[in-house]
């Protein structure tokens, strides 16, 4: 089966600095992948390049077999949906109006039904007619997630299983809604959607994804199952932290508990001259 999304020697430069340096990655249709790495590793940049938002300086990106920037924006929007971080809405749109934007050109009762389902899915049923700017950060994040899910569902109805790209989707969510989000992502994954999420929280990454991609200073520093990637060696090398990985005894699943861990000396910054 051809991959849903792939990158070959992908490089993204800003000036002389390579934010993404020669990354080759192939993600199959229906996979759920977590992108992890320290601050500034290039996680969001990689996501933006995969989504077609920014152009590759060198190398190739393919989304469903084609460079995302060669699709028309509308055709691309039907094949992949993106949830960014910290979206601010400029005008007093209601929650329902923002979510309805995910339906594109649809009108009427179908839109209302899609919006109501999405509100229910993200646990915002009572917030339908509230001005989105008056909601808390976490509530706004869930409303934006609902919009993205509606876009994904509408696209999948037209073009088959799509790609869902999430940038720090859990950042402002409480524990309960983090679990809700994971359940939502799990449902998408089960119906064949490819999910790629930038995650800050390594434990959440291990819980959510069967595959973890580790980025470090713009390069690929690990790619595999949580057991393969979440090791003391990786944490030491990439995050500069030693002795933090523990394992849940029954399944052997790794988890990171910084209690008793030690921070190593500050790492040497890599040379990025491209």
């Amino acid at each position: 089966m051809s991959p849903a999304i792939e990158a070959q020697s992908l490089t993204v430069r800003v000036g002389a600095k390579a934010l993404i340096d020669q990354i080759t990655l192939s993600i199959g249709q229906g996979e759920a992948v977590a992108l992890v790495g320290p601050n500034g590793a290039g996680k969001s940049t990689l996501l933006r390049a995969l989504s077609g938002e920014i152009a590759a300086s060198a190398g190739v990106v393919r989304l469903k077999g084609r460079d995302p920037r060669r699709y028309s924006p509308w055709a691309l929007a039907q094949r992949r949906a993106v949830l960014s971080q910290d979206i601010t809405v400029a005008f007093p749109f209601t929650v329902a109006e923002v979510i309805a934007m995910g339906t594109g050109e649809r009108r009427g009762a179908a839109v209302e039904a899609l919006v109501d389902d999405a509100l229910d899915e993200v646990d915002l049923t009572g917030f339908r007619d509230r001005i989105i700017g008056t909601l808390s950060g976490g509530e706004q994040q869930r409303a934006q997630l609902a919009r993205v899910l509606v876009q994904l569902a509408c696209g999948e109805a037209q073009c088959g299983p799509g790609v869902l790209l999430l940038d720090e989707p859990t950042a402002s969510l409480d524990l309960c809604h983090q679990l809700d989000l994971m359940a939502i992502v799990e449902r998408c994954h089960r119906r064949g959607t490819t999910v790629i999420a930038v995650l800050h929280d390594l434990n959440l990454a291990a819980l959510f994804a069967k595959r973890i991609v580790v980025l470090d200073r713009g390069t690929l520093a690990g790619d595999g199952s949580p057991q393969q990637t979440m090791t003391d060696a990786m944490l030491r090398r990439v995050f500069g932290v030693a002795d933090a990985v523990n394992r849940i005894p029954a399944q052997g699943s790794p988890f990171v508990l910084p209690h008793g861990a030690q921070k190593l000396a500050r790492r040497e910054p890599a040379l990025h001259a491209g």
Partner: protein
Amino acid sequence: MSGVTRAALSSPTARQVAQWRSATAGLVVLSILLLALLAIAIMAAAIGAAGIPLGRLPAALGLATGNIDPATLARDQLVLWSVRLPRIVMAILIGTLLAGSGAIMQGLFRNPLADPALVGVSSGGALAAAATIVIGDRMLAASQTPLPFGFLPAAAFVGSLAATMILYRIATRENRTSIAIFLLGGLAIAALANAGIGLLVFIADDRQLRDVTFWLLGSLGGATWAKAATLAPFVVAMLLALPFTVRGLDYLALGEAEAFHMGVSVERLKRLSIVMVSAAVGAAVSFAGVIGFVGIVVPHLLRLVIGPTHRRLLPASLVFGAILLLAADSCARTIAAPAEVPIGILTALVGAPFFLAVLLRQRSLVGL
């Protein structure tokens, strides 16, 4: 006005929002606005230095034959058809253009404080128009040919376009539009354009000076059917472009990246909006001078009633803008009759306090 402002500035509750934000409510509001425009147009036709009582209006319009003294009828018809109606039509067209470009600019810059006159777009147009009058006049003086009729609007369009594009470059970086930089950058562009106009005033002769002053304060005094006919295509172009911009402008409220992710061709939308705003403002400025604050007051008030969805906001703004400018122009030509108060002064008197009120409410947005 103060009552309206107070009511409009208190934020609506969730229930009010749900009541007014449907497609039906949008149509109801649009119908009410159209009826109000008709009523104000009839009033405007009746009042003025040479008044035409409402009873004589149908006859003067040729809609009815009453037993009116033929001399009075002839006078009424002359006043109505060659002075008042062209002026009413021009006020409607210019109000439409100014409010429409204000609403589009606000959507484009994701900023409820955008107004063409406030951020130098009108000044850019006025500078180009003034330069055409003063410099063009001198160059043509030798050959004794008058300035070609369409030349002034074209120059004003180019000036507005340049100002809009410079503003966009200044205010937008890495897909984000900074509201503070937008306002300050606009201020700088306006100051620069006004300095240029000042320089032209300095070198202008008396007759040119009168023309240039007219542009700076704004007036519909020179209204003719020919000018109205030149403005009409700009309004038609704006109406034709609306279906291609409303959805994109909604999505743009979430940011350029989000709009792109949802399938909007952002660059094309930006180009279309900038050209549309520049053409509309350039046309309005070239015939009526700089008239500020219509573009900010109209969409802001309407957003509070029917919500920010551009599919409803833009058509309503066009009609409300026509109402506001027609009402302002009617005041301008009657409150000190037979003298005329420049309309730009009137709109600024009402609009500037309104702008301050909006600014104070949005302080957190601007980061002050």
